[in-house]
């Protein structure tokens, strides 16, 4: 219950901020900060038992009839991510408070941001797949709102749409994968139970499909190839969003998911090949693209894509060492990347540009930022003694000692990506901070304390955890990693592993990176043709689906009412006939009861109906058509009275009268008949006969069947004792089948709203 309250409190705080943040900024800020501090304190208090190996489970009854409960689970892995989300969330909120100071609609911004925090917290804590999916899609939705925050900007809107289409689309695949897991295990979407039976999933025959679908969800969310292009475009969002969602947390949701499900699939080859290949490709490609960019935020976005690729690749490799390395690298990346994004925002805020080619001299103008950036970039490049170095050593170590031959390919690619990271770091640090250039005489100074403190804190954390990883982060990461590979915690972290081959490799990466930096003009020339860019292909797919939609809409929505009705009734009749043939209704159909005891007055009514219908084909005037319809309707009502159904007969009489009146009211507004000749009308005759015949047969079949099911008898017998009414029809309507009636009157009301919309809408009047 407590965890659910935490999540709901954050989302509620989001709603409060959306209403009050613009007017009472400081009050809301302190409330939100206190809330975050409280949640951090709560999760820290859970750290004690979790570090002793306990797993805390909290369950709230949710959809009990489907055996789906809102379950939350705190173990090493979810505790790590929960702390990541809340601590970074607090820092980002403080940072955004100052950074977004002057932007309009800041209340909405704060609301979206907190909605995201709450959803992300729910995502990493959920122990029920349905709950996890709901939170997963909520993060996609809040990400969409945040990317499109500058909604006046066409580019923002496009990026937001793109991110939503891809991540929410992947979410649907994920849902399908979850359903397959549920089919295989039948555990009520309970994550813990599913994770405990990998053999059942493997034997069910659904494993491969589930892996592909779930991997699709993870790959889209974490911007892995071939879905990587939405993340750089998502940089249209304000910088705090990029720092929080698109580097530290949301894009890690895919990573969290594959971490979480790794125990389930780690025996499957497909899981490793799929994630490994996608990860390795994304890692290399992202690093290469990062080196070609000029905009600070886009550089950081591509390095994020690349770093996420490293994580996917490590899970693809599998094994204890790889999981340890991935876990350390998640933290290392979150720390340095979030700091870098925030400083990129600071630079943008203070100088007005984020392009490296426009920047210079920031070392003298913004000394604190320089320290922050230098530390964070050093961590990214993997310079001793920062956490990035520890992470990179572990990555190299895991790949070097892996038995799988593909690990050597991964190692070579990682070396290349690492060198490119270094080159990017050198590029940023030298050209923006140390080079003397255009900005030399500009009066640029350091931003507000709230802008420079959060990134500095993160950068210093990178340094401290790098110097002493063993007693700062190892206790928690040990248990997180244990949850990923499903064994006892064995991780031991230290900064210095001795002067060995891995260290040499690390050193060589740095040197190669510096070397690559000097080759930058040559590397940057390499451009692929525009038709091969994923972004371009995305546009083609969207444009293609739009034109297909336009074509089909043009075909289906042809504007002729009679064609609509023809389509509806033909489809309906055919479906009904197919269903009846399939149900073998016609085999036992006897015509005998139909002709038994037929009366002369019944024949008269029948003749009236048939004559009137035939007459309809000859008439040109709508008024006469309407009147003829009246004859048919009243004849049918007469039929009802003959078969002792007074209620239905009264209703039919009244409805018929009202229809007549309504038709007469609008008859003068209708255009003249477009089908002038009788021949043209005759082409609808087969459809009319088909529909009429189908309905007649259906009614007849139902009449025969009803006697067998006994529902007739039941309703008649129970009407007085249970429904307290002698009129069984009315009792059925308002009591036994009241839900049906409720549905019908709802439809009636909706129809009325539709008619209002149709009649009030004047196409020529643009204001209407």
């Amino acid at each position, binding site marked *: 219950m407590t965890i659910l309250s935490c999540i709901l409190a954050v989302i509620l705080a989001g709603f409060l901020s959306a209403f009050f943040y613009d007017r009472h900024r400081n009050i809301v800020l302190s409330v939100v900060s206190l809330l975050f501090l409280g949640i951090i304190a709560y999760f820290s208090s859970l750290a004690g038992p979790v570090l002793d190996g306990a797993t805390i489970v909290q369950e709230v009854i949710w959809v009990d009839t489907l055996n789906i409960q809102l379950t939350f689970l705190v173990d090493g892995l979810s505790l790590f991510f929960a702390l990541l989300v809340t601590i970074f969330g607090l820092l980002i909120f403080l940072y955004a408070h100052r950074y977004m100071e002057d932007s309009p609609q800041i209340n909405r911004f704060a609301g979206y941001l907190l909605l995201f925090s709450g959803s992300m917290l729910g995502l990493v804590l959920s122990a029920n797949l349905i709950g996890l999916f709901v939170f997963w899609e909520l993060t996609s939705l809040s990400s969409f709102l945040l990317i499109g925050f500058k909604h006046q900007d066409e580019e923002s809107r496009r990026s937001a749409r793109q991110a939503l289409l891809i991540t929410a689309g992947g979410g649907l695949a994920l849902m399908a994968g979850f359903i397959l897991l549920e089919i295989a295990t039948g555990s009520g979407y309970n994550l813990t139970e599913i994770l405990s039976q990998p053999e059942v999933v493997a034997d069910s025959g659904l494993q491969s499909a589930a892996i592909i679908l779930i991997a699709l969800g993870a790959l889209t969310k974490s911007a892995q190839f071939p879905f990587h292009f939405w993340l750089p475009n998502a940089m249209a969002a304000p910088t705090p969003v990029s720092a929080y969602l698109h580097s530290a947390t949301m894009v890690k949701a895919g990573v969290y998911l594959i971490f979480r499900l790794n125990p389930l699939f780690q025996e499957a080859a497909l899981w490793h090949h799929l994630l490994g290949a996608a990860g390795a490709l994304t890692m290399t490609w992202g690093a290469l693209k990062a080196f070609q960019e000029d905009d600070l935020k886009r550089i950081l976005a591509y390095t994020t894509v690349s770093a996420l690729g490293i994580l996917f690749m490590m899970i693809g490799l599998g094994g204890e060492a790889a999981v340890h390395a991935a876990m350390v690298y998640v933290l290392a990346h979150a720390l340095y990347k979030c700091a870098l994004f925030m400083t990129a925002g600071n630079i943008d805020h203070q100088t007005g540009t984020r392009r490296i080619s426009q920047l210079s001299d920031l070392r003298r103008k913004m000394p604190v930022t320089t320290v922050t950036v230098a530390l964070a970039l050093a961590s990214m490049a993997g310079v001793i003694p920062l956490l990035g170095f520890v992470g990179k050593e572990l990555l190299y170590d895991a790949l070097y000692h892996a038995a799988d031959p593909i690990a050597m390919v991964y190692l070579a690619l990682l070396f290349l990506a690492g060198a490119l990271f270094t080159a990017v770091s050198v590029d940023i640090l030298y050209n923006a901070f140390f080079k003397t250039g255009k900005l030399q005489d500009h009066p640029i100074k350091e931003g507000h304390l709230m802008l420079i403190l959060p990134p500095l804190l993160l950068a210093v954390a990178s340094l401290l955890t790098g110097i002493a990883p063993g007693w700062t982060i190892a206790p928690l990461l040990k248990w997180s990693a244990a949850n990923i590979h499903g064994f006892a915690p064995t991780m031991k972290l230290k900064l210095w592993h001795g002067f060995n081959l891995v260290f040499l490799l690390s050193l060589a990466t740095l040197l190669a990176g510096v070397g690559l930096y000097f080759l930058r003009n040559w590397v940057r020339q390499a451009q692929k043709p525009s038709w091969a860019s994923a972004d371009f292909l995305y546009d083609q797919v969207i444009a293609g689906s739009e034109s297909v939609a336009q074509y089909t809409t043009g075909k289906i929505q042809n504007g002729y009412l009679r064609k609509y009705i023809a389509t509806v009734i033909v489809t309906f009749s055919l479906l009904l006939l197919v269903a009846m043939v399939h149900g073998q209704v016609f085999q036992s159909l006897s015509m005998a009861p139909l002709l038994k005891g037929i009366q002369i007055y019944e024949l008269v009514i029948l003749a009236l109906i048939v004559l009137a219908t035939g007459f309809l084909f000859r008439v040109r005037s709508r008024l006469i058509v309407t009147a003829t319809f009246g004859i048919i309707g009243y004849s049918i009502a007469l039929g009802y009275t003959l078969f002792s159904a*007074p*209620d239905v007969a*009264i*209703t039919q009489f*009244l*409805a018929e*009268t*009202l229809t007549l*009146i*309504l038709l007469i*009211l*609008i008859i003068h507004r209708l255009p003249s008949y477009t089908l002038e000749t009788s021949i043209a009308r005759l082409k609808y005759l087969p459809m009319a006969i088909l529909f009429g015949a189908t309905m007649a047969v259906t009614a007849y079949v139902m009449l025969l069947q009803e006697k067998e099911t006994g529902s007739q008898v039941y309703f008649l017998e129970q009407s007085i004792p*249970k*429904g*307290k*009414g*002698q*009129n069984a*029809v*009315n*009792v059925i*309507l*308002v*009591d036994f089948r*009241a*839900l049906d*009636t*409720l549905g019908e*009157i*709802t439809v*009636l*009301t909706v*129809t*009325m709203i539709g*008619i*209002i919309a149709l*009649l*009030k809408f004047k196409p020529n009047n643009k204001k209407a």
Partner: protein
Amino acid sequence: MKTLILATLLRLLTPLFISFALYMFFRGHDKPGGGFIAGLIASIPFMLHAMVFGYERTRQVFRIKPTMLAALGLFMALLSGFFAVLKGEPYLTSTWVSQPLPLVGKIGTPIFFDFGVLLVVFGVVLQITFLLTEE
């Protein structure tokens, strides 16, 4: 379509139609009738009114918006089902006063439900008529 006969008759007919509608409504549980039929009958005098005097006039006389009536009816029908929920039974289970009351007779949630149906039918039919007579 201004006819003197109909205009004069309407004064007499309107209360008659409404009483008849109510009569049909209340007998509905035991004899032919019910909310749907009553709703249709109740709407007839107002339809005639709109045809005779025109939409503007009817709207002035008839102060309540038909859409509001329909919404009210739907709400009432929805709400009537919650009595059962309060008692811990499935939604829309009927609940009756145990002893028939003097004069009023037996009272139970289906009456409110049926009255909701009446209001919805009444409101929808009137709204459509008003829209169609509106020039």
